[in-house]
């Protein structure tokens, strides 16, 4: 089944099964605004992030050296663009595009943005996310495992890493970032409350249905030959 990318635009189609459903979060809502922004606008920010990684965590690239020069399609399912990570030995790059077209990736990694950042920073366990199906991987599994192990071992702190490049502006930028994070957390809590309220009637109906089915199943088991009878 093919469904339209929820942000519209038509340039990107997703297969429901290949994309974990994006959670209702401020990221998802921000994506509505970002769909109007050409991915090229993100180039400077991604360049800064990559420079910080190279400067602060050279061990990541050393651990990946034996794989050759893999490339990854990183797909935050709650944003209207994908990230293209090319680990070329001399000059690894991170860029954004509106879709995967024309990019031959060694492997693809899909998940909500906060899950992907949690993985990058080692705050979330990749295997657990895979077991729960919150993370989807395709292509060369060895390249994915190597990348996961390399970044997990690097003790990445995205905010600190980027701020480290700002020199004297790092202090004010950290204050601003702290405010933004607090706002984000509040918005995330509000959205979770909203989500719970919206699905509550459906959950109540589902629970009642399950209880009724359990009751009927118990009755059938008791009536079956050899079944327990009271």
């Amino acid at each position, binding site marked *: 089944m093919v469904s339209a990318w929820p942000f519209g635009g038509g340039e990107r189609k997703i297969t429901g099964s290949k994309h974990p459903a994006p959670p209702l979060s401020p990221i998802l809502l921000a994506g509505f605004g970002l769909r109007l922004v050409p991915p090229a606008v993100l180039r400077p920010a991604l360049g800064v992030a990559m420079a910080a990684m190279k400067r602060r965590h050279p061990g990541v690239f050393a651990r990946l050296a034996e794989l050759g020069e893999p490339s990854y399609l990183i797909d935050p399912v709650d944003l209207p663009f994908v990230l293209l990570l090319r680990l070329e030995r001399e000059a690894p790059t991170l860029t954004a595009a509106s879709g995967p077209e024309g990019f031959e990736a060694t492997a693809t990694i899909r998940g909500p943005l906060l899950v992907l950042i949690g993985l990058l920073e080692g705050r979330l366990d990749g*295997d657990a996310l895979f077991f729960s199906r919150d993370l989807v*991987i395709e292509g060369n599994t060895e390249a994915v495992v190597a990348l996961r192990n390399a970044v997990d*071992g690097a003790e990445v702190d995205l905010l600190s890493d980027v701020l480290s490049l700002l020199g004297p502006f790092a202090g004010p930028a950290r204050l601003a970032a702290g405010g933004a994070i607090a706002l984000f957390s509040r918005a995330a809590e509000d959205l979770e409350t909203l989500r719970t309220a919206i699905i509550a009637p459906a959950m109540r109906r589902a629970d009642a249905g399950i209880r009724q089915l359990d009751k009927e199943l118990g009755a059938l088991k008791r009536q079956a030959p050899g079944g327990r009878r009271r």
Partner: protein
Amino acid sequence: MTAPLELVCPAGTPAALRAAVDAGADSVYLGFRDATNARNFPGLNFSRGELKQGAAYAHDHGAEIFVAINTYPEAGNLDPWHRAVDDAAALGADAILLADIGLADYAARNHPDLRRHLSVQASASNVEAIRFYHREFAIKRVVLPRVLTIGEIAALNAQVPVETEIFVFGGLCVMAEGRCALSSYITGVSPNKDGACSPASHVRYEERGDELVSKLGDHTINVFASGEAAGYPTLCKGRFVTRGRVSYLFEDPASLNAIGMLPELMAAGVTAIKIEGRQRGKAYVSMVVGAFRRAVDAAAKGEAAPPVDLGAVTEGQRQTTGAYRKAWQ
């Protein structure tokens, strides 16, 4: 208060080592970045320099380092395994974990003061086998295969002259550790010789409609329905069609969790408990080691373990006490 169980924890990277020590590990086990250890995965494990730094960090915090050199050396190519033993001794390891008899002999002759533990890969599960390793190679501790009941462990402990260590959390093998060749039938690579079971280089995942298909080589290992928790793509945890019925032939995808059995393990004479998962990230290490630290300390005081839910980090999101409470013959 009785002596607490020693908590032995996994580390696949220096960051995971620090996470384990910070979360309360008594000792951390790890391997070199090659086929000399049974978790030879891409991007994982320690360089010589990282081991030296990691050992210093652990020792500064009162923890010990065990180096797993627990694969079976390749005929005619003993050098990497001998070098691993020599380097572990030189770089500050407190013990080495061995499986191969020849390597145990090499370590005993060349590094008599370096403590030797018998890896689970040696599959020593009876009194005679353990006495042999102790007599011939002065093995001080045996990591028991995950095949014994608590009663059998207690009976064994009463008769062997060494400490025993048992797994209490993490992935489970099909009770043929050190002798399992399932992975090599399909991939040519096995945990025993190469340090990798179902190596990632041979694994593929495919999304098919709403289903997730896991493949090892050209063989479908499992098909997970929409929303069903997934497991590792190992043959032993495969779901196959036999006589028209789909089932897990060998073993369901589930993780061992014996956190509720620590008082029984203490009563059975176990010295150390081990958490599996050198291939897991530092988030897993922090969470699981922290939970077991609290449970071990509570058990030593005779108190109940604090409630904790580790279900999210278990394979297939399912848990079992495995053979410790064996309900089959």
